[in-house]
């Protein structure tokens, strides 16, 4: 059914058509807000149009499988999910417990004490998202939002170099001898790096990300290192902070869903007083812990670094050792030995 047959004013109809909305199905997935901003009409009016369109659409739609327009069945979602690839962490033990790596369409929070390797993991993921299809990667690009100034270009180059030499050594499936060898520098160019210096800037940037990603559809991971830093100062009003943070989380989740990309938020740890005792916990409080889909805690266990899945709707809680080497995140040395012995 055509938009031209909707009972709306001629000028609105013209606006719709000139914006490219010619069929009712093109309107079915829109939210009133999106439509309103897109064709510059009041939100209320946009809502009316959509109601009308969905009403007409229902009459038109004989199958009637969708209760709400724009909805998806669980089966469809499962099918779609199977088509998505994970981003490897370069540590097989960690990939194992994560079910292949960092999942797209999900928000993953990673926290730990200073020096445990959060930034290292962040840089590694920004490089690994670029692994080409023939090596099981996504051949995509990364957005790196640095709030702490810990992103070191020389380190990223090192990790990029190691990553390139790793997959250049492997036999290629779709052997293409003519393909130009990628340089570490090229990988760096595929990381869109933003440095933010205050929480207002951070919020503004995350609001703007949707637009940016629309223009750069190749982006498949957004890394925020760290989500916490600017939110640990200047907040007298904790309720405000919580509200701002959950709004941020919601926006990031929406981005993850809309563009099928992975969002990785790095978090710091803080001490918490309960009943006189002091223990460590991830920063930003209890309500924040609900905000992310997955939560991974990095910690020391003797001389080894371990990652522990603290919260996930799909993954079993488990822990795995990893190590930070000159090449980046890799399997733990002792774990390697264990595998060899077996």
């Amino acid at each position: 059914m055509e938009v031209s047959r909707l009972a709306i004013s001629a000028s609105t109809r013209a606006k719709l058509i000139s914006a490219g909305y010619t069929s009712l199905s093109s309107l079915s997935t829109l939210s009133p807000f999106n439509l309103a901003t897109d064709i510059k009409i009041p939100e209320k009016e946009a809502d009316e149009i959509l109601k009308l369109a969905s009403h007409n659409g229902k009459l038109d739609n004989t199958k009637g499988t969708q209760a709400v327009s724009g909805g998806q069945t669980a089966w469809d979602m499962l099918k779609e999910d199977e088509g998505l690839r994970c981003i490897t962490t370069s540590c097989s033990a960690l990939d194992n417990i994560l079910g292949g790596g960092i999942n797209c369409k999900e928000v993953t929070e990673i926290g730990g004490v200073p020096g445990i390797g959060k930034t290292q993991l962040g840089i590694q993921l920004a490089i690994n998202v670029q692994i080409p299809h023939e090596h099981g990667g996504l051949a995509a690009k990364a957005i790196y939002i640095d709030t702490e100034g810990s992103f070191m270009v020389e380190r990223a180059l090192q990790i990029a170099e190691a990553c390139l030499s790793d997959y250049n050594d492997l036999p290629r499936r779709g052997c293409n001898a003519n393909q130009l060898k990628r340089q570490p520098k090229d990988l760096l160019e595929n990381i869109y790096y933003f440095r933010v210096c205050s929480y207002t800037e951070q919020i503004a940037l995350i609001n703007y990300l949707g637009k940016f990603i629309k223009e750069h559809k190749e982006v498949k991971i957004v890394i925020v290192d760290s989500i916490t830093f600017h939110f640990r100062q200047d907040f007298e009003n904790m309720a405000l902070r919580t509200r701002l943070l959950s709004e941020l989380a919601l926006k990031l989740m929406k981005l993850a869903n809309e563009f099928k990309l992975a969002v990785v938020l790095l978090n710091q740890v803080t001490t918490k007083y309960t009943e006189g005792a002091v223990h460590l916990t991830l920063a930003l409080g209890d309500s924040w812990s609900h905000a992310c889909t997955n939560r991974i805690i990095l910690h020391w266990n003797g001389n080894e670094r371990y990652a522990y899945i603290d919260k996930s709707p799909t993954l079993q809680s488990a822990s795995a050792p990893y190590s930070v080497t000159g090449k980046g995140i890799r399997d733990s040395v002792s774990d390697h030995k264990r595998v060899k012995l077996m």
Partner: protein
Amino acid sequence: MRPQILFPAKKCTLGCPVLDQFLAGGVPCGSITELSGESGSGKTQLALQLLLSAQLPLSLGGLASSSLYLHSEPPYPFRRFEQLSKAFYLSYHQVFDSVECVCNNVLVQELDSADHLFDVLLKLDSMLAEDSRKTMPIRLVVIDSIAALFRSEFENTPFDLRRRANLFFKISSKLKLIAMKYGVAVLVTNQVVDVMRSSGDLNALRIGNFDSLFSSGRRVCPALGISWASCVNSRLFLSMNEEIVGNVTDDGDDNLLCRRTKREMHVVFAPHLPSSSREYVINREGVFGVRGQIETSVSGTSFKSDTSKNPTFLLCDKDYSCGNM
């Protein structure tokens, strides 16, 4: 908002090729580097040396800039600074006109409280915005020490600790902003505290590459707790341990035992450096790394001294006592 173009951070030389190599070029611009160690370990020595070497032209690894020294532990070590600047001038007399000229490029400001530090940082921000066209703009800020500002004013109650942590983040955020905006290298020195054996001591928590840090035979950790640790980008630790070198003389007299202080610099954590340690000495001319194998430990195993020491350098490098005698 546009993504920034990535290029490697500029580094400021420490004035010693061995230490520069150890730190992959020196102290990085655009981030905060912390230097912690017990009193007498050489923090101030290294800081003073850095103030001087920042003036070197880019071709010599410096920043071709003035430097700002914010100190909170009176008195200002001007005698030692004069000594160092003379030595510095002698080694680079072709670059600088006079010793005076070298000293003139180091600005000194005393700090009396954490709030005062924040005020100074606000002023610094506006000052840097103005003098970016000058020939020698400030590109190095040294705070010596951050711990002294915080250790007296706050009590050990949850409320005060929260207030203190809030101030840490405020200060480090401002420092990082200045560091990023103007490409300034920031070095902050920190004191250490002893780690109690009792369980539940948060200082016993492992932060970084080493399970525990030792200095003068005591188990220590950098002061100000985990919140401050989250505020710095890199953390270096200076240790000093008494060591017996050479054999006991045949009459067995204790006085003839040859002792010396072994000083080492350790990378506790840094986004760009592996876990490693490097021995250094302090002498009349400054702080110098000892050439030799870098002891790289896999994910932070022990960093105990190795016994195969080259005894020759001991003869030429008299240990310089730095203020604690």
